[in-house]
């Protein structure tokens, strides 16, 4: 008697041995290939190679340069450590440049972040016109820093710029205004450019942070009778801390590395009053034609930046935990 085997659905059928051509990779790949570690390495390799070629290798080269007598035009002449480091720190421009860079960083960070936060608070609500103002505030960020610096150089120029002439026509000043002619005016004119250029960008970062704060928290505070000031101090600022940390980090790092704006607007003048540390690196490499001292200065700046960033992170983490 022929007994008909019960009809099984495909799902119930035991899996047949897959065809060699269609067998999944997992089944055929060697054991080492199936290891998670190897896979991880495979995924990370392209980035690792990129970082090695474009960051680690150049960094090692800069390290080697900083320990060598290395004129720009004639190349490596052998180790001379620690001469480049002592030469750089003994330069008459080094400590004034460090002091100026720190002063500039403090001024720009305070003014820029304060204004960015104010702008973010002004446009955070979706009221009529908010989109327009957000766009207007952000627009200068779309311009390159070199282009913006050139634009302001033209505006500030007492011989070709319109700003001084307009102020004279309006009767606000009697004589042509020298926007870049004194140490103070040169610093303030540059700070104005940077604030104009970057306030919208930092506003955007803070705006995203503001919009992540749940409305319920504000409502609860209002129901408890909290004033605007109390809400700002006890809710907005603490919950905005991650965004503030990011903007602080970006602003401090960017200011310590300031170059373009001073290179175009003041060239470090008048009377060497606006020389930044990165300008000194450029000067060593391309005015004094000495790559060794330029590299030594670069390593010093890198070390200081790393230290500052670590301290900033620690400080912010500590504040979060407390």
């Amino acid at each position, binding site marked *: 008697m022929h007994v008909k085997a019960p009809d099984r659905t495909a799902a119930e059928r035991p899996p047949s041995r897959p065809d060699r051509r269609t067998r999944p990779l997992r089944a055929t790949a060697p054991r080492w290939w199936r290891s998670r570690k190897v896979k991880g390495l495979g995924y990370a390799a392209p980035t690792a190679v990129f970082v090695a070629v474009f960051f680690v290798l150049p960094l090692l080269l800069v390290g080697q340069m900083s320990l060598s007598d290395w004129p720009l035009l004639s190349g490596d002449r052998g180790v001379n450590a620690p001469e480049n480091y002592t030469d750089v720190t003994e330069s008459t421009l080094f400590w004034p440049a460090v002091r100026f860079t720190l002063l500039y960083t403090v001024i720009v960070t305070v003014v820029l972040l304060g204004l960015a936060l104010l702008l973010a608070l002004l446009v955070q609500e979706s009221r009529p016109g908010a989109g327009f103002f957000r766009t207007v505030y952000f627009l200068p960020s779309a311009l390159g820093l070199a282009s913006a610096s050139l634009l302001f150089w033209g505006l500030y120029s007492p011989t070709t710029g319109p700003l001084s002439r307009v102020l004279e026509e309006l009767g606000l000043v009697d004589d042509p205004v020298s926007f870049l002619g004194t140490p103070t005016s040169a610093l303030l004119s540059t700070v104005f450019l940077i604030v104009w250029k970057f306030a919208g960008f930092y506003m955007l970062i803070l705006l995203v942070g503001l919009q992540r704060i749940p409305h319920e928290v504000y409502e609860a505070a209002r129901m408890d009778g909290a004033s605007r000031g109390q809400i700002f101090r006890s809710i907005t600022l603490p919950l905005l801390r991650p965004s503030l940390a990011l903007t602080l980090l970006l602003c401090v790092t960017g200011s310590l590395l300031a170059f373009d704006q001073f290179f175009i607007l003041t060239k470090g003048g*008048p009377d060497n009053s606006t020389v930044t540390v990165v300008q000194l690196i450029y000067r060593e490499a391309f005015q004094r034609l000495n790559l060794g001292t330029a590299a030594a200065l670069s390593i010093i700046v890198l070390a200081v930046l790393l230290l500052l960033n670590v301290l900033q992170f620690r400080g912010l983490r500590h504040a979060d935990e407390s």
Partner: protein
Amino acid sequence: MGSTAGPLGRLRRLVTGSIALLAAASLVTACGSGEDGSGGGGGSGAADAKGADDGTKLTMWTRAATRPQSEALVKAYNASHKNKIDLTVIPTDDYQAKVGAAAGSRDLPDLFASDVVFVPNYTSSALFADITERVEALPFAEHLAQSHIKAGTYEGKKYVVPHTLDLSVLFYNKELYRRAELDPEKPPTTLREWDQQARAVDALGGGVNGTFFGGNCGGCGVFTWWPSIWAAGEDVLNKEGTEAQLSSGTAKKVYDTYRGWVKDDIAAPGARDETGTTWTGVFPKGKVGVMPMPSTTLGLMPKDLDLGVAPIPGPDGGKSTFVGGDAVGISATSKSADQAWNFLAWSLGDEAQVDVVAAHKDVVARTDLASNKYSKADPRLVTINELVAHGRTPYALKFGQTFNDPNGPWLTLMRDAVFGDGGSVDKDNEAVSASLAD
């Protein structure tokens, strides 16, 4: 009979053969490059005095400051020769950095021009090929602008020839002179007269100023102030270019005159801030009486501006000029030195100097062509061309970092001397010397 070694033996032979071929190729290359690594270079003149015109494509760099002159020469050369030059104009401020980076990667073009004051940096770093014999074989060698030739001579060998000459001269506005009741045909012959005439024009008022200068520009200072010191027969540097003599009595007289112009508002607004970017743009507006200008701007002046040209005088007379501009050489790594020389030799010939350079109202690189069919039509050009023989080009290996660097010691001296009380000139001069001897 087949190989006894089998496939492995064949592979070994292939590898050995390839290595031998590579070794032979490297040996040939090494022999060809010479001990000093100067590559094809310029040789020192074994080739034809006119070089080779065989349809080679050459590359050339020049800086933006002398762009019109370089472009005119290259355009005329390309139109009349089989060789073709691809000219790249690089922003003046970036030029040193660009040459330095290219030198490091041995990626220099066949020909590159340079601000003549930076030429010693390049000759001492062996970036140019030796062209001594080629230059000396030119029938007009002795008439070439000697200040450029001297700047390009290193350890007795010549590396460059004059490319474009830019002289500092006085431009004065004849219309303003007439209005100030000054004789428009009598420009100043001493610094004192210059001062008097500038003050007379300044007294016109109504936005008219006596003079102008780049007070925050070291390069402008050496270009326009030093001729007044040279005109008195003094020098500003020692022969080796390692010591400054910028605190002499004559130098202080020059600074005093400029300080007087600042103090009494004789200089147009903006002199204190002028970094050199716009200093030549003030005179063409017609509101400045008399000021030093680069001769290369003569052809760019508005046609309706009635201007005269005069040599820069010293405190008590004399005349001089800063023979600036660009010198050009063949890069030490060029593999087309004969073709590159063909351009250089042609650019110094009668045809190029008269029909291209003089026709554009520029200064000719040869003293025997100072008077030519174009300069005869404009006496101002004769004045300028004849000044080449009275002018100087300073020589210092550390010129850029000392005098052109906006954060260098010369600019500090300039500003202290003119915008300050002038009391720190001696101390500042020591700082300049220290930088030169660095």
